[in-house]
């Protein structure tokens, strides 16, 4: 099938403008981040940071500085609270499995929300094989967790609660601080983990203020290189490794530290945080223009998730009725606009986004949804191009649908 790709790409020849909005699933790494990384492959610090030679010591120095910077950006107390992992997927796996295995004598109950990302949802479910049970807290129609249900779910056998700070599909900013207080009041022993991948660099985030025990962040979600993430673990909390191997600078994750990716992630974090207010204001302005423009141009739409300051500034999630999402992503790609969809059509299971279903969207609304995230690197011209192209694309797909599938 790979030979088909050549032909597919040929169909994109002649595109004059490209706008990448699929920042949920990968991102464009800014040139200055790439430039910061490159010397660490073959010019300096290419050694193993735990060995006794110059390239090793160079690597040790830069990695330690990175630990410190990421710790600062997350609001951690000390750099030892940070573990670099290959992405937020591994960080979430480590957070859930590592604490569950270390706390199993205290209980075997895990609590998550029903809109957690797959790398929390499926890990928690997988823990069933090891005798742990998972309770899923419902959310309302904007994706906010039900704090009453959370309170009911936590008991003296609950060892871990995991709720994302910002939902990756809806941009819903959860009341994490309140949730932590509720959980700790019911059981002070229960650990609280938050996947903050979609909060980091978008909303103010401080693990000490939130009083969470564990948190996850990811690199590509802030325009850093793919293949890098980090987990915060509050000092003094017990955790077991989930992978074994040579231990280097970090005791929770074995293997040789990936210095260039750590540098890239750190650089991307610096760029996100040094002008945090301006960066997030730009994301918000562009996102609002995008959403308002789409609602001006098209009818039969549903806006998914909350509006206003309870929503992450970058996230736009819109259900386009009478329009199938997968077909629309292809149609848009041919115009140089790259988005993703909550449609089920890439799955054998035929089930659309569990997040959209959880907030009460009908299947036809979920299948016709598109998810877009803005970044500080996009321009007004980019948004204008999307607004100029999207209606034609939607109308063509709606023309194929006709009166079919309108429930």
């Amino acid at each position, binding site marked *: 099938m790979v030979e088909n790709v050549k032909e597919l790409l040929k169909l994109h020849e002649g595109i004059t403008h490209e706008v990448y909005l699929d920042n949920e699933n990968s991102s464009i790494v800014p040139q200055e981040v790439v430039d910061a990384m490159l010397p660490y492959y073959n010019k300096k610090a290419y050694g193993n940071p735990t060995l006794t030679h110059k390239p090793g010591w160079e690597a040790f120095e830069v990695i330690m500085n990175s630990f410190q910077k990421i710790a600062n950006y997350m609001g951690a107390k000390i750099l030892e609270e940070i573990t670099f992992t290959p992405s937020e997927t591994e960080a979430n796996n480590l957070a859930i499995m590592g604490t569950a295995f270390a706390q199993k004598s205290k209980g075997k109950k895990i609590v998550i929300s029903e809109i957690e990302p797959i790398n929390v949802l499926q890990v928690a479910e997988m823990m069933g094989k090891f005798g742990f049970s998972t309770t899923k807290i419902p959310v309302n129609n904007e994706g906010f967790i039900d704090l009453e249900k959370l309170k009911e779910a936590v008991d003296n056998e609950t060892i871990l609660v995991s709720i994302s700070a910002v939902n990756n599909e809806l941009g819903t900013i959860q009341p994490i601080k309140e949730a932590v207080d509720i959980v700790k009041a019911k059981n002070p022993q229960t650990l609280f983990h938050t996947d903050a991948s979609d909060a980091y660099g978008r909303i103010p985030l401080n693990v000490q203020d939130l009083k969470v025990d564990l948190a996850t962040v990811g690199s590509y979600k802030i325009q850093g290189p793919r293949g890098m993430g980090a987990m915060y673990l509050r000092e003094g909390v017990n955790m077991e490794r989930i992978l074994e191997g040579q231990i280097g600078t970090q005791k929770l994750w074995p293997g040789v530290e990936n210095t260039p990716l750590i540098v890239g992630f750190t650089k991307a974090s610096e760029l996100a945080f040094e002008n945090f207010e301006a960066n997030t204001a730009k994301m918000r302005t562009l996102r609002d223009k995008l959403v308002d423009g789409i609602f001006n141009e098209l009818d039969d739409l549903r806006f998914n998730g909350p509006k206003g300051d309870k929503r992450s500034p970058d996230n736009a999630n819109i259900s386009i009725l009478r329009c199938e999402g*997968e077909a629309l992503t292809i149609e848009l790609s041919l115009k140089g606009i790259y988005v993703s969809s909550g449609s089920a059509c*890439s799955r054998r299971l035929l089930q659309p986004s569990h997040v959209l279903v959880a907030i009460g969207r009908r299947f036809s609304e979920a299948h016709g949804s598109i998810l877009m995230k803005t970044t500080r690197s996009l321009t007004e011209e980019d948004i204008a191009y999307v607004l100029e192209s999207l209606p034609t694309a939607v109308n063509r797909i709606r023309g194929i649908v006709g009166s*079919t599938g309108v429930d």
Partner: protein
Amino acid sequence: MSRIPLPYNPKVMDLFRHPKNLGKMEDATVVAVAGNPACGDMITFYLKISAQDIIERASFESYGCAANIATSSIVTEMIKGLSLEAAWKDITWKRVTDEIGGLPSVKFHCGVLAVGALKRAIRQYFKEKGVAAPEWLPNEHTFEEKQALEEEELAKTLSKRLKPEAEKQS
């Protein structure tokens, strides 16, 4: 959401971009529907059938992915001018897949639905006409019809799990 790569072939892309026989047919002899929007796949087939049981024209509408649109379109092309008997016997999922140059395996259900809709339309034609089904038309459902039924059943099961808010909306 689990995802898999979907490198569609040029024929699928061409039919997706320029679908043939698209749209509602006002003077259709028979209209058949297969699939369910809950599964993200639904096809309407329109056939114009002559007094001699020849398919004069066929058209479609599709709430579905690129694979679904392309297979629906190619089926309407393949059956044009065929007798109902020939359409019933010759147009199988296997032939349609070959004609379209292959589909990613996960898209099997999107493509098979088009053939299911066709078979359903042919059956419906004789039923609506009120004549006995010809000898070549078996009582038992074909593979493609069973697949369509299976998908529709799945849609019902999924819909039962929907939230109360969603039920209120619909």
